[in-house]
């Protein structure tokens, strides 16, 4: 089991959230104070350096036009950390390749980071959460198709070493593709893809030997996703080094009271609201899901989570908090419930959770929890082909 430290790098110093229609997409930047913000950037980077010293890996992401995530360009943070950290693997999860529109530029950025870090990059690709469509102004339909075309082009560019090729795909046309530098890792950095309930896509991820990651989902749903992944591994063999990843919110403390306080702070992330029109852009999900939405069955994760308390979240494995032994137990329980997984992606900072608390939680995790879960067996292919 590999453990990864993560923060979305939030800017929580906002007017009361009830007075803001949407913390994403439309929130005016007058609410951003550069003096506070610059301190936050440096603080969050410091926490990643501490994670490195503690023996944790580092996960980064990016979002746009939102106070929930000041990291508007994950490759920039990764580039800084590639130089400033020593041992940690650095995972960008991920590059919004369906929205950025220029896979070759991404291939170049990632190859540079992989070289500066001497092969410590894990390279995630995401199709982008719904509201990102509005910041990128990319067509909300066919995001998955654009994701895969982009990933295939990037891997082709990374692994072609005999001079240029032309690419004329469905969405991207490039001439004389000839990426310098080639990646440090050969043939290329491990690729990660995120997803939720699209099992066919999860099987595709497994079949190509990429890591599949999912965030903040209840254990019963995660189990189905990871089962889909493992079933495809049977069909197509066990890809070396790939596996599954899950992200909960994690807060580790000396005692239960302090753990609960920290966990409550982390829940700021779950309260962040987005205007309804940005939650499900037209055609972002398929017809079946949209029919359910029209029937009124659809309720976003945020809404569902808001209605339920911390105990529920803890039971589901979405929110992990407690003393080191308790946290280890919760992680193991989740591991057992989902049939095993390989990467624990920990959102250990959110909202107003301060530097001292975050460092304390990270340190306790690294020193007292990590040794208890480190040797959990890696994901194995399913024994039988799934029906």
């Amino acid at each position, binding site marked *: 089991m590999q453990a990864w430290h993560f923060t979305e790098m939030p800017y929580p110093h906002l007017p009361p959230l009830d007075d803001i*229609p949407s913390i994403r997409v439309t929130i005016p930047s007058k609410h951003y104070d550069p003096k506070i913000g610059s301190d936050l950037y440096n603080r969050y980077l410091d926490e990643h350096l501490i994670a490195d010293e503690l023996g944790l890996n580092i996960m980064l992401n990016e979002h746009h036009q939102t106070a929930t995530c000041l990291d508007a360009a994950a490759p920039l943070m990764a580039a800084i950390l590639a130089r400033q950290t020593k041992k940690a693997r650095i995972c960008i999860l991920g590059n919004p390749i369906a929205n950025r529109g220029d896979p070759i530029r991404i291939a170049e950025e990632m190859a540079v980071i992989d070289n500066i870090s001497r092969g410590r990059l894990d390279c995630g690709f995401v199709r982008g959460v719904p509201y990102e469509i*509005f910041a990128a*102004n*990319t*067509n*909300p*339909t*066919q995001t998955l198709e654009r994701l895969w075309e982009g990933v295939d082009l990037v891997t082709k560019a990374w692994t072609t070493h005999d001079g240029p090729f032309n690419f004329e795909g*469905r969405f991207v046309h490039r001439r004389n593709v000839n990426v310098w530098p080639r990646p440090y890792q050969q043939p290329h950095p491990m690729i990660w893809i995120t997803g939720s309930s699209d099992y066919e896509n999860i099987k595709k991820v497994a079949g190509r030997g990429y890591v599949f990651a999912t965030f903040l989902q209840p254990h019963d749903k995660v189990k189905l996703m990871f089962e889909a992944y493992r079933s495809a591994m049977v069909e197509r063999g066990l890809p070396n080094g790939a596996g599954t990843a899950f992200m909960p919110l994690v807060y580790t403390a000396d005692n239960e009271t302090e753990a609960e306080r920290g966990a409550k702070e982390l829940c700021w992330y779950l309260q962040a609201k987005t*205007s*309804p*029109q*940005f939650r499900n*852009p*037209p*055609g972002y999900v398929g*017809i079946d899901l*949209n*029919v359910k*939405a*029209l*029937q*009124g069955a659809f309720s976003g994760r945020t809404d569902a989570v808001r209605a339920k308390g911390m105990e529920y979240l803890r039971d589901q494995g979405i929110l992990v908090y407690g003393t080191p032994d308790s946290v280890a137990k919760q992680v193991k329980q989740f591991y057992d419930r989902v049939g095993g997984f390989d990467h624990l992606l920990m959102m250990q900072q959110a909202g107003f959770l301060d530097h001292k608390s975050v460092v304390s939680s990270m340190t306790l995790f690294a020193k007292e929890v990590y040794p208890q879960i480190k040797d959990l067996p890696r994901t194995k292919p399913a024994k039988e082909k799934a029906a």
Partner: protein
Amino acid sequence: MSSERSDRVSINGIALEVRRRGKGSPLLVLCGEEELEFDSPWLSDLAQKHELILPSAPGFGQSERPDWISNVDDLSYIYLDLVEKLGLKAVPVVGFSFGGWLATEIAVKDDSFISKLVLVAPYGVKLGGPLERDIADIWALPPADVLKRKWHDPDKGKRDFPSLPEETLRVVARNVESLARFCWDPYMHNPRLRHRLHRIKVPTLVVWGDKDGIMTPAFGKSYAGLIPGAHFKTVADAGHYPHLEQPAAFNAVLEAFIG
């Protein structure tokens, strides 16, 4: 009750749904993006006087949507094939909103089969600068705001989706998806179209609801001004779908022009 039938017409391998309703002189109707026309009293009234030919565009209704179709320009060529296949000649054409844009894209390419052209609050062109919103952003505005802009009486635009059969909802969801596929960017217009409008030679009437909050009547008048000899009329107390909000007033305007 007027008779209705629905045909599958194959155009170069794409199966299109073409409804026919009513009796009388033929009238080609290009529906709005929501295809609200089919169940409307407005359509029943019109079917008393005309044989209505109502195709669903690729991706709408039950019509297929091959992957290569990316925009309304693409759709217009499929419609030119359809018109040829149906053998339509000297037929009046009326298009609403998205269907009005489609009718315009068709007419700039070939209007030889059109006797008269009626464009009702058509999308398709942008006249202002980069920071001017000629067309309200229906995808970025809060849904309640869009409803108010679209309808003079927003209650008329409310639909109780959970009460509708799943089959209907599948069409609704697909129509929404197809509109986004074709019209997301550039938003609801084709930058080339305004430079082709001079090619329309048939008598043209542009109709606008005087309370249209998606595109103002002033914008509509400017749009009409780019089509040689086009007339411009407004319908009182109507939003973006004047035919659905004020069927009698709208049909009077329509009949006066095509009749």
